[in-house]
């Protein structure tokens, strides 16, 4: 039954309609003569409260409101890869063709191309028994992405008919199961998590190519992390780096309430940059959702859930997915605005009391799972959310609510950013609860001593922080030689290891093995330094060593075939120390 009502009141993105008996919460409605898309967020008597995903200017009391009977759903199927959507999955490049470079309201376009033919290869035969999420066949969507066509999560039965290999559109029937025609296109409500068989504890790290994350605060496939940071701390660059270089099959970048130019920059650079693991442009494994700050506020929320839904869909194929959301604070602000207009009782700083649970419902869609369906497969969805705390004050509600949910925190520090220490991830306040999970993977695949190297390096940095307070009182020269060496080595860890230049052709991505060898060089320098000090060498002499400059240039060592360089560097450091110690003993 289609509900037809009339506009009763308009206040910004919020519309109240009357005569709406029979409508459901979260049902999509079309409002006014331009058929603006809205979603019912509350019903009361015969009135429905609607948040409208487009500009409401021009709406009048008495305008038509028509229910669709369905909740807001994402279209899933071949054609997703490389797409650029707004928050309600309108394809932005198609909108440009339709109405030019300004987004006009009321424009409608199908999210997935209806006329494009995909080469479908079946994987099942007539008579096969099908359970939800079973592979039916696949389409090679891009050179790197094999897009499996799965039975929708609510379909099971016996294949009565299956088309032969060939070219089909997403709405052409490809199979018949118990009398029901199956097409490649699926729809799934964005607010409802897709089902899976079992959630597993993440054990494999998500290698990001960023040393501070991989080596110090590892993220796990299926994990959830937050990156809070004041403005200018490099949040967006860090997120883009993670999206670009992470070892995942598909990356989903959600720009939610952020800058248009940045989104344009991301789109263009993803077309140009090449995935180091496949040699293909990054855009061939990416999906973009762009709802910039000046686009309608209410659509920020849907952009986040749309991203998660697309992520889960690919996860169900058995892939590893990374979704980044920049920035969850803007979404929270949108919630606050709608809540304010509804005149709900505000929680902290005007945010609605359900802020925490709404954030949790988003982050909880991450996970490493055994999917439904045959063949048995595992997939993961990792979620990283940026948080933009006002005044870089982490005590504000959005940051605090997020910290209760996520298991890794990359705290961006204003002071590091002022010193142009990028990525400005503070090593004293950041943490990862995935360290234990991924230890055995690191020890088996990268470096059997990773855990102890990591702890030793962190201890040096911790010691530096303590010493710095002392230095402020007495000056660095008054410290004992061992402590002076700690300061020297801590500086090396900071500048030559933690700092990583996103715009340097080599340093932008660092393989974990190289990161580990870099750290070994620094710690070798430290260990031999301690020994040298005991044998009478001063830190002043150590500071003049040529090894220091060589260590500073480690980042520029190519990412392939670097092992011999490092072996040679270790030898160089050892030889230089031996010489230093010899000199001291000759004079003595």
């Amino acid at each position, binding site marked *: 039954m289609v509900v037809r009502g009339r506009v*009763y009141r308009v206040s910004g993105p919020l519309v109240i309609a009357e005569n709406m008996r029979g409508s459901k919460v979260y049902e999509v409605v079309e409002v006014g003569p331009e058929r603006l898309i809205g979603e019912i967020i509350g019903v009361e008597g015969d009135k429905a409260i609607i948040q409208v995903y487009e500009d409401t200017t021009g709406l009048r009391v008495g305008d038509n409101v028509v229910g669709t009977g369905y909740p807001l759903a994402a279209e899933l199927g071949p054609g997703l890869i490389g797409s650029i959507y707004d928050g309600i999955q309108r394809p932005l490049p198609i909108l440009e063709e339709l109405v030019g*470079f300004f987004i006009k309201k009321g424009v409608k376009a199908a999210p997935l191309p209806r006329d494009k033919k995909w080469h479908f290869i079946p994987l099942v035969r007539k008579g096969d028994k099908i359970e939800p999420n079973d592979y039916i066949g696949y389409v090679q969507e891009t050179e790197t992405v094999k897009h499996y066509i799965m039975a929708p999560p609510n379909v099971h039965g016996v294949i009565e008919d299956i088309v032969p290999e060939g070219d089909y559109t997403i709405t052409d029937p490809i199979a018949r199961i118990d009398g029901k025609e199956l097409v490649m296109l699926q729809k799934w409500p964005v607010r409802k998590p897709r089902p899976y068989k079992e959630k597993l504890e993440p054990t494999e790290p998500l290698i990001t190519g960023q040393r501070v994350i991989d080596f110090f605060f590892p993220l796990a496939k299926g994990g959830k992390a937050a990156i809070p940071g004041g403005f200018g701390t490099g949040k967006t660059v860090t997120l883009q780096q993670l999206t670009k270089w992470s070892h995942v099959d598909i990356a989903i970048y959600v720009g939610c309430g952020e800058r248009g130019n940045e989104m344009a920059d991301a789109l263009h650079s993803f077309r140009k940059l090449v995935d180091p693991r496949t040699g293909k442009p990054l855009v061939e494994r990416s999906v973009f959702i762009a709802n910039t700050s000046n686009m309608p506020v209410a659509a920020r929320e849907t952009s986040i859930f749309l991203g998660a839904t697309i992520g889960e869909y690919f996860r169900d194929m058995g892939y590893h997915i990374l979704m980044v959301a920049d920035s969850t604070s803007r979404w929270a602000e949108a919630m*606050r605005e709608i809540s304010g207009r509804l005149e709900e009782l505000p929680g902290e700083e005007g945010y609605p009391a359900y802020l925490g649970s709404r954030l949790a419902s988003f982050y909880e869609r991450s996970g490493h799972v055994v999917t439904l369906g045959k063949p048995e497969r595992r997939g993961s969805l990792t979620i990283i959310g940026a948080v933009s705390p006002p005044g870089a004050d982490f005590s504000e509600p959005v940051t605090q609510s997020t910290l209760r949910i996520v298991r890794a925190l990359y705290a961006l520090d204003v002071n590091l950013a002022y010193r142009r220490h990028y990525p400005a991830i503070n090593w004293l306040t950041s943490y990862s609860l995935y360290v234990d999970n991924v230890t055995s993977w690191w020890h088996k695949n990268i470096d059997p001593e990773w855990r102890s190297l990591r702890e030793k390096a962190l201890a040096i940095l911790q010691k530096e922080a303590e010493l710095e307070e002392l230095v402020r009182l007495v000056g660095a020269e008054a410290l004992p030689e061992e402590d002076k060496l700690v300061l020297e080595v801590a500086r090396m860890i900071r500048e030559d290891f933690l700092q990583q230049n996103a715009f340097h052709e080599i340093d932008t991505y660092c393989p974990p093995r190289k990161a580990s060898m870099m750290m070994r060089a620094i710690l070798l320098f430290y260990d031999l330094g301690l020994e040298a000090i005991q044998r009478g060498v001063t830190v002043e002499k150590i500071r003049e060593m040529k090894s220091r400059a060589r260590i500073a240039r480690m980042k520029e060592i190519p990412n392939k075939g670097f092992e011999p360089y490092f072996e040679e560097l270790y030898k160089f450091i050892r030889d230089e120390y031996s010489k230093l110690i010899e000199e001291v003993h000759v004079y003595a």
Partner: protein
Amino acid sequence: MPSPSLAIRESPGLYKAQGSLIIAEPMKGVSYGEVVEVLLGTGDTRLGQVIDVGKDAVVIQVFGGVSEVDMHYSRIRYRGEALKLPVGIDMLGRIFDGLGRPIDGGPPIVPEDYQDINGSPLNPASRLPPSEFIETGISAIDGLNSLVRGQKLPIFSGSGLPHNRIAAQIVRQARVRGKEEKFAIVFAAIGVSYDDAMFFIENFKRYGALENTVAFINTADSPVIERIAVPRVALTAAEYLAWNHDMHVLAILTDMTNYCEALRELSAAREEVPSRRGYPGYMYTDLATIYERAGRVAGKKGSVTQMPILTMPDDDITHPIPDLTGYITEGQLVLSRQLWLKGIYPPFDILMSLSRLMKDGIGEGKTREDHRGVFMQLYSAYAEGVKLRELAVVVGTEALSPRDKKYLEFADRFEKEFIGQGEYERRTIEETLDLGWELLAILPEDELKHVKEEHIKKYHPKYRKKKS
């Protein structure tokens, strides 16, 4: 503003008038966001806008406030459409009030079109990433916080700091190298003093820029609520010139702090739940609908570059106004009271300033191959110097190592020679970078980790002198 409309209707009844809001009797067909004229008993009219419409009442925000509105004689005339600005190439060289009515004594312009002052969001997929370097001739900007076409780069200032002089210098000197293209300046004065507004107008006149300028002036004594419209009116003009007349437009909006105050006043009048410091919770979104109206698009020759100016209350960068602005704009140029007191013009606080779009606008073919390295090196060296300066206050200069003393010397000379420059001095980017190398030569060579070795050999004064 005269604009043709067929749907004009009048409503008699008012329920309430207070602050800048009128609550009127409901009327059939009133649309959200439409413009109204408030007809006063005295015969005057004021413009207003519908900000809430329902079956029980219509809420109208009145530009110019509700003084002299009464319940008896006042009428509301609904115009049936959103606030529109008559636009045309004729606007160049003219001065308007905050709602786009000429105030320079000249005739009304011949409109080529009427455009909704709220604009429409640019499709992110149609945008081109800004990458054309604008040479402002100011070392602190060109060398360390480069501005590119289509960027929005605000100046965060404090009361009494020379932000107006700097903005005027940028307008005088800015150019894209090797190109002669149509350019225009759109200037919006939002609640500034008459002197400040005239300073700019006089400056444009003196340097022959007035004929390329469209100015919108809302001075401190103009109606507060009109300030909500000024930046939108100005950017509508800017967008029209950029997208319809292929011009490169630099929009200067001063002072955005006044805009935000007006927004707060309006929000309070509407009895909304306030967010930080009484500013409305939607201030981020509201500011974004202004600042995001900058950029370049594929297939268009023109561009809109924005330079908003705001004064940080109590020089506090964490105050909601600079804070939310910084989250939207692509960087910020922060002025330092400390440097200004030291007599340094322009007093840019280098460590707090940032240009996010710099990376795409510099380097080989755009500025010079060594630009990135020099920029990073100057930055980190100055940061080190400033840190050591603080340390030296506590432990005394004598307790510092020889290396540290070099950094102190560097920081002092960097402030005086690199940041500091004349108000009428224009440095090319090569001069700026060479000056940077001169200063870096103070430091030991193995401290120069951010510059490539080949660039050291090519540009470091030590090797340059050897060659010559």
